[in-house]
């Protein structure tokens, strides 16, 4: 890549390269334009962190649901009408407690339970988070604004197979007694990845 050459043209921009593939697909009748629009709807409206927030709020207010969620996350979220792609065969829900903190990552690429907690944010896919959070978990979380006291144990979950994870945050004490709808509003994507506590 770094070699200079007198015969090779310069590298096309990412926009030009993307347009090239799109045009090639279009010429072959693969209808890329239609699919791009469908995907925009899915990524912006369907695969929202609000899905995961509903799961969390339900788990906080319904002990029976929480039991089912921790036993089989995929079945439990599907029962709420949420979807997961066929290859996400297993959803493991990681319960935080006052003495335990879970955080998820993908050191090899960017895997997440994206239909439930939303597509991964940019920093989750960056080289810094992927390289460092498994080895320097407490330091990285602190740099990201989560300074965990020493009595809280950290568990890092590296998404290296097709099992998907989400964190069930600790319900803040001041929200005990709130309605499920109110609780949905306080659950963030960051708390379900495990880089924040609520």
């Amino acid at each position: 890549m770094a070699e200079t050459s007198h015969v090779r043209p310069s590298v096309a921009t990412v926009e030009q390269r993307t347009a090239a593939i799109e045009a090639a697909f279009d010429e072959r009748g693969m209808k890329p334009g239609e699919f791009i629009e469908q995907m925009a709807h899915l990524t912006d409206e369907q695969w929202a962190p609000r899905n995961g927030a509903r799961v969390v709020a339900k788990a906080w207010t319904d002990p029976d649901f929480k039991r089912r969620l921790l036993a089989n996350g995929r079945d439990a979220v599907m029962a709420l009408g949420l979807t997961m792609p066929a290859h996400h065969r297993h959803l493991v829900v990681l319960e935080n407690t006052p003495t335990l903190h879970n955080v998820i990552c993908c050191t090899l690429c960017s895997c997440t339970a994206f239909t439930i907690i939303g597509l991964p944010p940019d920093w989750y896919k960056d080289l810094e988070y992927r390289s460092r959070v498994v080895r320097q978990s407490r330091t990285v979380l602190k740099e990201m604004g989560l300074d965990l006291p020493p009595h809280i144990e950290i568990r890092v979950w590296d998404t290296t197979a097709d099992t998907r994870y989400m964190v069930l945050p600790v319900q803040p004490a001041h929200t005990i007694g709130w309605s499920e709808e109110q609780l949905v509003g306080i659950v963030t994507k960051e708390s379900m990845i495990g880089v924040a506590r609520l």
Partner: protein
Amino acid sequence: MDGMHDLGGKQGFGPVRYALNAQVFHAPWERRVNALYSLAVKLGIFNMDEYRHAIERMEPRHYLTASYYERSLTSLATLCVEKGIVTAEELERRANGAFPLASPSAPGRSNVPERERFKPADRVRVRTDHVPGHARMPGYIRGKSGVVVSESPAYPFPDAHAHGVNAQDEPTYDVRFKAEELWPHDADPALVHVGVFQSYLERDD
């Protein structure tokens, strides 16, 4: 393969560039790439293991300097060329410039013959295999011992599935390692859980 993508535990990277409610996409072309590769998967042109592996096969300097969606774009284009959907020449003509692709694939492999079924609390060791093709075993657990926490349903074996090699689906094990044992004297104490395919594991007596 021990590729540049295998970042877990690599040192030298700085602080995470973090913001609340961070963006998923930064430019319209990123959305298009994300949709185009999803369309190709949906149409059966390639599977997710082939897609991941074509990212891993990128020339390391290109991998490190490309953005996330440029890696996605490079994998998509590489596989479309390799599968005969389009030629590299057509892509370069349409793009009006060079279109860097990933390096060719090396052979994959089928399941390890002597696989064992494990149960929670079993002590296991990650085999010290080195393979030229795709694998989903991060280098930081190679040869390390851990404890099985649970078993996940059987999935296609990535080392085979990324290469069109026949193999049985196999379970993955959630294996718990100690960060202090993965990187002695140079890690924040924590438990690190990794989803490990059965073929990568042996019993640790």
